[in-house]
């Protein structure tokens, strides 16, 4: 096994909202009343059914309540064992599924305030992502600006499957705000279920939805690149979270080939897709969709042609690895240092540089 080094940045932790009613203290009177008098149910997304094996490692599942809902558990199971210096919290509460832009905005504001009070204020290692809903771009930008005043928010969080492809110009005010405020855009696995969860329709099974996350990330990367997001915002970083990354090399071969063939269609794309990915796109480590043999994985890293793309993550409490084998076998110490420390710090400017012992 490959040993983690102390002082790393865990870029994908999932603190769980115990219930919609947990957010009531962070809502105004109107929304508190709406939630209670209408008997609204908890916003659990089908992307992560609470009891699905994917949603929690068996030995991380609490006796009661949702996996990831206890700070003490997160400290004991994820932050302490891996010597984590900073942990970035990406709440996956199902606020994006809501259709009303007012309700989505109220729930996002409550969720972000809840994260500050219940998590960031209680452990100095934790950092946050600003959860936004894209039903209203104006409201999303306002929420980014509101939360960004707290420097512990280090990125903006969106889902990989939403209403429209993420490169669409409609979303660009979000990207302009993020770039201006030094916030990468984190794009996490999961669907708002406003479209069928695969590009060929509704499958029968949860396992299909989960496998299909990887294909959704691929189409989103195409969209972001060819629409020209990074020509307009060259300093904007985007982080694909819980995306898998072993699909990246063949995806780029194909995108690059077609871009050479039909680049007249999108003349504003001023660099090759390969260059854009190397400079602007990052990927969280887990899940590692590869065979367990170190040899194959090292070849895959070679196919990626860069050691700057991967950012350490446990994906806590999701079940991606067992024991302390958070790093795949056979990684060099140099690569471990890049993945755990250098790459995350280069990606998230709001993380303060902290002295670490190698």
């Amino acid at each position, binding site marked *: 096994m490959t040993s983690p080094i102390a002082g790393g940045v865990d870029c994908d932790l999932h603190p769980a909202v115990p219930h919609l009613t947990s957010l009531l203290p962070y809502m105004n009177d109107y929304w508190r009343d709406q939630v209670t008098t209408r008997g609204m149910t908890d916003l659990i997304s089908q992307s992560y059914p609470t009891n699905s*094996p*994917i949603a929690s490692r068996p030995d991380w599942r609490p006796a009661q309540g949702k996996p990831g809902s206890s700070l003490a558990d997160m400290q004991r199971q994820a932050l302490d064992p891996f010597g984590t210096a900073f942990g970035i919290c990406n709440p996956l509460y199902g606020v994006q599924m809501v259709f009303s832009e007012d309700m989505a905005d109220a729930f996002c504001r409550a969720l972000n305030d809840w994260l500050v009070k219940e998590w960031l204020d209680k452990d100095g290692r934790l950092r946050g992502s600003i959860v936004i809903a894209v039903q209203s771009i104006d409201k999303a930008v306002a929420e980014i600006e509101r939360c960004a005043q707290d420097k512990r928010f280090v990125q903006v969080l969106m889902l*990989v*499957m*939403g209403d*429209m*492809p993420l*490169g669409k110009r409609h979303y660009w005010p979000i990207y302009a705000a993020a770039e201006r405020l030094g916030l990468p855009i984190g794009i996490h696995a999961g*669907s708002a279920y*406003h*479209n*069928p*969860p*695969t*590009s*060929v*329709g*509704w*499958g*029968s*099974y949860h*396992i*299909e939805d*989960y*496998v*299909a996350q*990887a*294909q*959704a990330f691929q*189409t989103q990367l*195409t*969209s972001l690149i*060819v*629409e020209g997001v990074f020509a307009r915002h060259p300093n904007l970083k985007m982080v694909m979270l819980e995306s*898998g990354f*072993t*699909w990246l*090399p*063949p*995806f780029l*071969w*194909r*995108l*690059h*080939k*077609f*871009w050479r*063939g*039909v680049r*007249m*269609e*999108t003349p504003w794309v001023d660099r090759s897709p390969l260059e854009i990915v190397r400079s602007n796109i990052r990927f969280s480590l887990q*899940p590692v*969709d*590869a065979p367990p043999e170190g040899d194959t994985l090292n*070849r895959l890293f*070679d*196919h990626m*042609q860069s050691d700057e793309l991967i950012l350490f993550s446990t994906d806590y409490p999701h*079940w991606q690895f067992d024991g302390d084998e958070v790093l795949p076998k056979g990684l060099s110490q140099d690569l471990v240092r890049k993945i755990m420390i250098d790459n995350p710090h280069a990606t998230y400017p709001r993380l303060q540089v902290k002295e670490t012992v190698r």
Partner: protein
Amino acid sequence: MNIQIRERPEGTASAGIKTAIADCDIHPARATKDELHPYLAKRWHSHLETFGVHPYQGMMEGPPYPKAQPNASRRDAYPPEGGPQGSSLSFMQKQHLDPNNVALGVLNPLNTGQGIRNQDLAGAICAAINDWQIEKWTSKDSRLKGSVVVANEDGVSAAAEIRRRAGDRNFVQVLLLSRNVEPLGQRRYWPIYEAAQEVGLPIGVHAFGFGGNPITASGWPSYYIEEMVGHSQCQQTALASLVLEGVFERFPKLKMVMVEAGFGWAPSLAWRLDKVFARLHAEVPHLKRKPSEYIRDHIWWTTQPMEDPESRDHLFQTIEWIGWDKLLFATDYPHWDYDEPSRVLPAGVSDANRQAFYLDNAKQLYGIS
């Protein structure tokens, strides 16, 4: 090998190809709008004139994403006698089959009855296309073999059409498209798989099609390049559905060919499926083996558009993960993103693997001696 090597003049496009090849993705076209009329009942002539084909998309004519070239085809492939690219057998022979020494050419007709909403019309057009393939193409050139096109959303009618062609050696596969009303593993399509297994034909799943779903899981993209690149994502999801629904458990002799959707993604999809299956197998107890094993045993891949990494080692490693015995060479003639046979495979491949890649895998799969 008992295939004669044809003499070619110096300087022809494919002077590098000395041996016979199989081209597993050729697109024949109709020379005129009315070319199908002899094969279609009279009622459909006026129906088509009045209502069009009424597909699962908005455009009366043409694709929703305008192609990069007219008919998505090579500008040098217009036949001298007129008509669109791919519509003349004699010009196809002269421009492609003869100079490239094509010993086996698999026809994959697009713009058929697939992806249209009126299922009676879909069945009628598909049957007509199948008759047209025999009369215009396969009976005139024995190198060419057809694909049975079927009304993909009507499993019962599709199965009947497949059984009607049973034993007809003008056809070597059944043709489906990747994008349908539902993911391809769904039960509405099982009668197609049952019939194909029964008559011993592989199923080719060609990239493309209309099923009414947005072509990404996050809605409709803007550009043709997104549709082109996105075919591989649609194909990945369609294949995941086939595996996870247990199609290959239920139809253990079924063989499928992924056509024109790339193959580089196959290893990472298989690894991801295996990894997630290890966690979630309780949801799909009908699967008796790991997903990657079904893929390894049941799936073949056509090569065009060839994966094109900067390093040929990366290509070779990827092919080794899939298996040299699973790739079927294809050009996509006459489409613009055609792969040139002599240039597609870098140097450094053993003779046995080259032979498998260019010809033998296809002959074996399609039962051509």
